[in-house]
């Protein structure tokens, strides 16, 4: 359980990290919080020749709030994001989801960007990125580009990031609506484990309590976390009656491609997807109504 040999470089700036990545390309890996990378090294699932440590680059660690977007630097620690009350007021799903990510000791070290690049199909933050349609800014030596979450996540543990690119910023849309509610939940074997299935939702209502905007998604039941913008649209203009809600959740579950493993069968995961989607949508709607 010891890592294989590698060379270590602590990048002092984003430019230096990109320069090192362009030099070493495929034979290098970015080291952020190490909470996924180091176990994979210990299991010898990865054998990079170089680890480029970006965790000390201060310009990759920030939370910047604007009216319609919250920007987080890729290397902002998960605990920092979880503890930020202003951010939690603007993008409540982040804090709600982070409560399910590992344990305090993991979040003290793990970064927001690391979780997104790791792209575990059951991971909470990639699901939030999908639900909110976050945008991800990545940088190579040749320059930056911005990807939508949908384009970023291409499969289980796989993203559109090129080997010489570094994720630098995540832009979380802030909903302008005054009465907005959100909810996140999951079923896992033990608290802090990866989810068997996770679900999150965000809903906004008008003064009469009618839904004016809705978004939801499910993780752990397909190769990537999935958001359902078209199904969510069906809830707009309604007061979330039970039959409609159940139908929307059932259709979402039917569209998923859950796998089976020792923890749960595909049928059980699909069942959970429908139950948890119903629960988070209802809870987000109730919270939004109460905020009127």
């Amino acid at each position, binding site marked *: *359980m*010891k*890592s*294989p*040999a*590698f*060379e*270590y470089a*602590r990048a002092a700036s984003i430019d230096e990290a990109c320069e090192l990545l362009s030099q070493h390309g495929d034979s290098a890996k970015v*080291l952020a919080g*190490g*909470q996924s990378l*180091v*176990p994979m*090294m*210990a*299991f010898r699932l990865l054998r990079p020749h170089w*680890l480029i*440590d970006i*965790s000390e680059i201060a310009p990759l660690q920030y939370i910047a709030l604007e009216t319609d977007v919250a920007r987080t630097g890729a290397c902002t620690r998960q*605990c920092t994001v979880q503890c930020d009350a202003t951010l939690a007021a603007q993008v409540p799903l982040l804090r709600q989801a982070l409560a399910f990510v*590992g*344990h*305090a*000791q*993991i979040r*003290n*070290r793990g970064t927001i960007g690391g979780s997104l690049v790791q792209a575990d199909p059951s991971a909470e933050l990639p699901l939030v990125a999908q639900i909110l349609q976050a945008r991800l800014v990545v940088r190579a030596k040749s320059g930056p580009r911005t990807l939508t979450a949908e384009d970023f996540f291409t499969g289980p543990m796989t993203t559109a990031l090129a080997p010489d690119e570094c994720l630098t910023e995540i832009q979380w849309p802030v909903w302008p609506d005054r009465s907005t509610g959100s909810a996140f939940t999951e079923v896992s074997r033990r*608290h*802090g484990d990866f989810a068997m299935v996770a679900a999150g939702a965000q809903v906004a209502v008008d003064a009469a309590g009618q839904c004016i905007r809705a978004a939801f998604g499910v993780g752990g039941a397909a190769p990537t976390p999935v958001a359902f913008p078209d199904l969510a649209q069906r809830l707009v203009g309604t007061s979330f009656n039970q039959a409609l809600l159940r139908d929307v959740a059932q259709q979402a579950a039917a569209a998923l491609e859950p796998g089976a493993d020792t923890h749960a069968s595909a049928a059980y995961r699909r069942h959970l997807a429908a139950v948890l989607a119903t629960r988070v949508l209802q809870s987000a709607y109730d919270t939004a109504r109460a905020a009127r």
Partner: protein
Amino acid sequence: MSETLYRIAVTVNGVERTGQVTARTSLVDWLREHLHLTGTHIGCEHGICGACSIMLDGAPVRSCLIYAVQTDGHRVTTVEGLTHPDGRLSILQDSFCETHGLQCGYCTPGMLIAAQALLDANPRPSEDDIREAISGNLCRCTGYQQIVEAIALAAKRISGEPA
């Protein structure tokens, strides 16, 4: 193959320690094998059990998931750093003895670090806070109840309430 050695200087339990390490040397291996601070235990070596918990710049983290080279210039506290300078046990450590918060002792250094970090941040934790704080630390002996009692007892004593 000869591996590159990296020079590091780390403040461990208040004292600056220097060394030369290969990049792949985990922090826990450096602490145990080079500094002979064997209080920190190694269980799974891949982040699951929490036995290797230490504080890095005051925050509890897994020392098996950090390479020693990454801690250059940082501050590390191990379980050895929790005792009084004269070697007497801390209030928290005494509480673990009193409530039988350990049996084999394998998880204990990690539990103590997690608990001390909790008490540093929140001197009056609820039982839920305590359970959450140690949720990343596995114990195969006690069933956790006595550990929770130990931390609650220490919290009372530290804040001067009658226990």
